[in-house]
């Protein structure tokens, strides 16, 4: 190439200026930039949670003693449950489970009182397994109440707290770091930027490019003395800027609205966002090269956004996924970005702790950019 570097950058700047002007007048994009983050922030901050609440449950108390009532009251006191519904028979309880009227059904046998004296009290708990996540949690809560339950409150116990704790054979002291109350809110909001950026970069970039092709302005640009590289770079610049705005919005929103400020380094946050945004935008460019109409661009983007949300671990922990599925999730840049985000925001990580996700993202960007170059060539030749 004989042209000077000066002309290269001024061309990039010119394309970027043009693109920024287009973006400013794009109402649909503005909606995506402002409304969507607001909705997501509010939903994840206030409404969505995997922690069971308001759980309807039924109790069949055949022993009808003070101890069994105390046991039921202890379960109630965990705060996850609605008031228990007393049922007259086993079948009635089973029917409630079947029609969804109860998620858990506790059966306290007639011999409960006697078993308590013998030291082997046992109760039966039936769970509606159709919602496995809730069922597993509810089972664990009630099981914990059971193991901590002090069946015979002896008068010699001066300190009831100690008695409860040492009731078992072993004393397990538990601590939850970084998020002591295990709030789902912290889990979701710390990765909110990842979800928003995936949506924004992919759909906005691909739609923008396809719309230009539909309108014929892309051909006009090719007729100008700009090289394809300059066009692509110039187009990327404003989107990168918007992406950083959205990222800051997500971080500040979580901080101001819900008190979830990044514990780690802001520098790491800014650094790791760049390869993720570039990679996502690169996919957007790639999608636009595959699609002929804006409708197709949307479908292809959805095809990518959906699995990356589901498999990356922003909504469901990837550690639970079966092998194979877990590895497929590693293909998506959102997986690595959310790992980095969670480390920085929740665990207070700095640049060194996020080296591996960072490396993965950089590799991803290189692959995508190479693919974009390869795919765009025939069209521009």
């Amino acid at each position: 190439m004989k042209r000077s570097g000066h002309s290269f950058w001024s061309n990039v700047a010119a394309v970027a200026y043009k693109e920024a002007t287009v973006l400013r007048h794009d109402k649909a994009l503005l909606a995506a930039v402002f409304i969507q983050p607001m909705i997501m922030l509010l939903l994840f901050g206030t409404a969505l949670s995997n922690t069971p609440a308001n759980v309807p449950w039924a109790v069949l108390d055949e022993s009808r003693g003070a101890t069994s009532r105390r046991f039921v009251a202890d379960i109630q006191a965990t705060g996850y449950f609605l008031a228990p519904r007393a049922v007259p028979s086993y079948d009635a309880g089973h029917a409630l489970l079947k029609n969804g009227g109860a998620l858990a059904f506790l059966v306290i046998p007639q011999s409960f009182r006697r078993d308590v004296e013998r030291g082997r009290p046992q109760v039966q708990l039936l769970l509606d397994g159709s919602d496995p996540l809730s069922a597993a949690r509810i089972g664990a809560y009630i099981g914990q109440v059971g193991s901590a339950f002090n069946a015979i409150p002896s008068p010699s116990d001066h300190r009831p707290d100690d008695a409860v704790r040492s009731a078992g054979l072993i004393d397990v002291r538990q601590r939850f770091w970084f998020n002591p109350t295990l709030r789902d809110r912290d889990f979701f909001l710390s990765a909110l930027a990842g979800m928003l950026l995936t949506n924004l970069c992919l759909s906005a970039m691909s739609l923008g490019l396809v719309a230009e092709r539909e309108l014929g302005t892309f051909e006009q640009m090719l007729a100008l003395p700009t090289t394809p590289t300059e066009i692509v770079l110039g187009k990327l610049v404003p989107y990168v800027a918007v992406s950083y705005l959205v990222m800051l919005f997500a971080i500040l929103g979580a901080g101001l609205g819900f008190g979830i400020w990044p514990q780690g380094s802001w520098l790491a946050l800014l650094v790791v966002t760049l390869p993720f945004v570039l990679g996502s935008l690169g996919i957007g460019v790639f999608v636009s090269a595959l699609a002929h109409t804006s409708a197709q661009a949307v479908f292809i983007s959805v095809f990518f956004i959906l699995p990356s949300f589901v498999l990356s671990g922003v909504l469901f922990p990837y550690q639970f996924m079966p092998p194979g599925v877990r590895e497929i999730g590693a293909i998506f840049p959102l997986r690595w970005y959310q790992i980095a985000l969670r480390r920085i925001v929740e665990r207070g990580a700095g640049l060194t702790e996020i080296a591996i996700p960072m490396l993965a993202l950089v590799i991803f960007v290189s692959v995508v950019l190479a693919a974009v170059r390869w795919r765009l060539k025939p069209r521009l030749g």
Partner: protein
Amino acid sequence: MSWRRLRTLMRREVLATFRDPFTLTILVAVPLAALLVFGFVLSTEVKHLALGVLDAADTSASRRLVADLAAKGTFDPRPYATREALQRALVSGDVGAAIVIPPDFDRRLGDPRSANQPPQVQVIYDGGEAVLAGNAEGFLRSLVATSVADLKKEQPSPAAPQNRGGVEVVTRAVFNSRLDGKPFMVSGTFGFVLSFLTVLITAVSIVNEKLTGTFEQLQVTPATSMEILLGKILPFGGVFALDVVLMVLVAGVVLHVWPAGSMLFFVVVSAFYVLVSLALGLIISATSETAAEAVQKTVLLSIPLVQLSGFAFPIRNMPLLVRWLTEVFPATHYIRVSRGIYLRGEGPIALLPELMLLVLFGVVLMAYALRSIEARR
């Protein structure tokens, strides 16, 4: 309304749909991909979770405890020598949980008075991964308790401590005894795919017709608005009904998830729900000027669709106000019906209230769609 005109319109729609290979691919590929992706993703089983171990006791008993934790493949123990190293591993996310065994573990274990002073271990979870920590907690506790009980039995301690308290809770899950996540997600995926894809496809199809001008042409033909509406949604309804059957079969054959209730009932209800959802798509497209606008509206709509319909998060866990809001979405009710049939094998009588609500949604949305088409003429 003329049956002949309606038939012509429907034929036109079917031809237009089947001529476009891209739409066809989407109609087959998206439902199948969604089924497979969602089907595998939800699991409550903790498997091979990296567990940091700081074993300050380092005796045969403490090593037994660690080996027991690793035995079932639930945890992968990784030894750390110091507390600082363990802390670093938690911060960097190398381990999801950590267990600290104190130096006096053995002494306390063998102590006959240990009922008052049982051996102590400390467990630290990475609360940042809230869901993971919540589930791992139950597993770890029960594994530790079992292991220590075994150790205790083998201890030649003269006075075996009497179990002073505690109630053993024998838990059994009905309907899905292994707590497999697949049926739950599969039955919800129907709601997601049928809501999202229908709205998107109608919206895009109508806006494209507007762009090419064929929609204007349709409106100057003698066809009534009702005929245009039905001519649009009945063929799509038919296509999506086929989609439902395809999804049921793939879920059954590939994921081994079959509906517990009547399959015919499920397909009929789903086909009706598709019509409701298509009407919503018509409304969106009738009120949008460009394809991009219709698409943007659909995507914005898909946020509450995924997150507030009970598909990904139980509605029960939401605050009261939001719980009321979720009732406004037809998808919420369809997902309830779909889960009722798939998971609990419920029939029409048990589901009657939800079905009536769906019919009500259908009538209201159809009427509104009709009005918005009429308003354009």
